[in-house]
């Protein structure tokens, strides 16, 4: 056997290599998650405990005072609700709109399809800041600033979403659709009863991307939501961090509340997220 004939030196080298690899990876993982550990730990300290030298890494006595303060005095429940409503609404509506368009691109033949698709794809390079000023004015004209619509309407369609869904649907066999058509199903019925159920994995992926993107987004909600009661969590957090610069523990609790929901959603559905990255990464 090969193992038996291997020299001692060879095994030593391999052992050292593995030892280095594992210790390197463990150290790197610890450094990567340390900010999160510290955030959670500091959020459970009473005010002032984290601002000491040498720094305290474990709370002497766990307290939820910071969380209580956030929800009872600083209106964080409301921001949480705003973030949640927006993230759910945008993901659901855009899922519907993008899957309709993705279906058309994947399964229909029509004039100008290929140029239109390429045109959409290449316009993805345009940074969103270009459109922010006119869209802001448009929303202002229609009185939609400081309303959920200001974020939902521009988020209804995304080129990335259309691309993702159409790539997935292209791989489905046409025979299913033809069979349904022979049975007398209409186009919308086919989309609703056959395409959508088959496309479930990619729909979950896109919903997850959109949910996380909307939840984490900062610049657009900062611009659209200037009224305090309409703040999303990131906007509220950045606003608080201006006012409560010194209160480390409070800000850490605020960060925990902002991060936890999106992290939990990600952890539960990470398989779909990774698939989405890979699908987006594969160029034709």
């Amino acid at each position: 056997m090969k193992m038996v004939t291997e020299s001692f030196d060879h095994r030593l080298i391999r052992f050292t290599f593995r030892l280095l690899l594992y210790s390197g990876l463990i150290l790197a993982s610890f450094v990567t998650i340390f900010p999160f550990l510290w955030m959670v730990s500091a959020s459970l300290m009473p005010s002032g405990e984290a601002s000491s030298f040498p720094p305290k890494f474990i709370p002497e006595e766990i307290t939820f005072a910071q969380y209580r303060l956030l929800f009872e005095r600083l209106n964080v429940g409301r921001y949480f609700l705003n973030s949640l409503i927006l993230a759910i609404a945008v993901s659901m509506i855009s899922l519907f709109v993008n899957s309709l368009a993705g279906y058309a691109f994947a399964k229909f033949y029509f004039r100008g399809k290929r140029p239109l698709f390429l045109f959409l794809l290449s316009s993805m390079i345009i940074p969103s800041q270009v459109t922010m000023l006119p869209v802001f004015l448009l929303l202002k004209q229609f009185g939609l600033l400081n309303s959920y619509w200001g974020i939902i309407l521009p988020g209804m369609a995304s080129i990335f979403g259309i691309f993702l869904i159409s790539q997935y649907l292209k791989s489905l066999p046409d025979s299913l659709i033809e069979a349904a058509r022979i049975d007398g199903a209409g186009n919308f019925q086919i989309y609703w009863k056959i395409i959508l159920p088959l496309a479930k994995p990619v729909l979950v992926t896109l919903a997850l991307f959109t949910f996380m993107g909307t939840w984490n987004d900062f610049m657009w909600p900062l611009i659209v939501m200037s009224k305090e009661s309409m703040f999303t969590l990131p906007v509220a957090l950045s606003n608080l961090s201006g006012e409560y610069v010194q209160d480390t523990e409070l800000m850490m609790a605020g960060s925990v509340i902002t991060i936890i929901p999106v992290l939990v959603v990600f952890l539960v559905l990470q398989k779909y997220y990774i698939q989405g990255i890979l699908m987006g990464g594969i160029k034709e």
Partner: protein
Amino acid sequence: MQTKLYTPYFFLAPALITLLIFFFLPIGAALFMSFTDFDIYSLGKLSWARFIFIRNYAMLLSDPLFWKALVNTSYFVLVGGPLTIFTALTAAILLNSKFLKLRSLFRLAFFMPVATTLVAVAVVWRYLYHPAFGPINYLLSILRMTPIDWLGDPKWAMPSLIILAVWKNFGYNMMIFLAGLQAIPDSLYESARLDGANWFQQQIHITLPQLAPTTFFVVIITIIGYFQFFAEPYVMTQGGPVNATLSIVLYLYQQGFRWWQMGYAAAIAFVLFILIFIVAMMQMFLRRRQEARA
């Protein structure tokens, strides 16, 4: 497939109309705005904006703050981008080791920052960087090094934001690299081993060339993303100290949505677009040439 001619357009309509109203028409509108002196008075009455042709762009060229923002952003892109990609590639190659146990656990740890909210982690890092009480300076003090005023020192503020950006983003690129690595056939490495190539030589002569298409994609998305950096300086430094972290998008935000110089801000947005476009085209060109040579 037998369908009426207009059927696909029904399916396309909601998305295309949305994109038209909130994306394509605004691009034209922004271009038009960038040729006007649209300001806070025009905000009250749109018709008060006057056409001033290219004066905004001419003003940008002689605006020291804009140049500062341009230099800062380039610094962030040119240093932060390669660092992020290098970290991602290293992590991916290590995680791709065949005998590695607990791979998915390591992968998850490296990916966690990607899944979280930028503003929240920026708030956390602001305290990690605290000159007196921050854990990072505590580590330096253990190593008997002089403490650094990370976010307060103009020399260190940008490197601080770059470190945060690398930490936050490398996991995403790592995932893409991992997929690319898994597509490289084992036989290539085996024959290289037979030829006596060591581990390092294998990475240089097999992994890197095989990963070229993946790397191209990663470089493009990283550059586009990094050109638009905004939340980090907004939350952590407000562009300071002495404008050391003022980015193009932060300057655009200040001009457009704080001082309501929206014509001027639109011009900044277009310069940003042109920069991104040029860099992407350059990448594409290099890639073509590389492919032609291969």
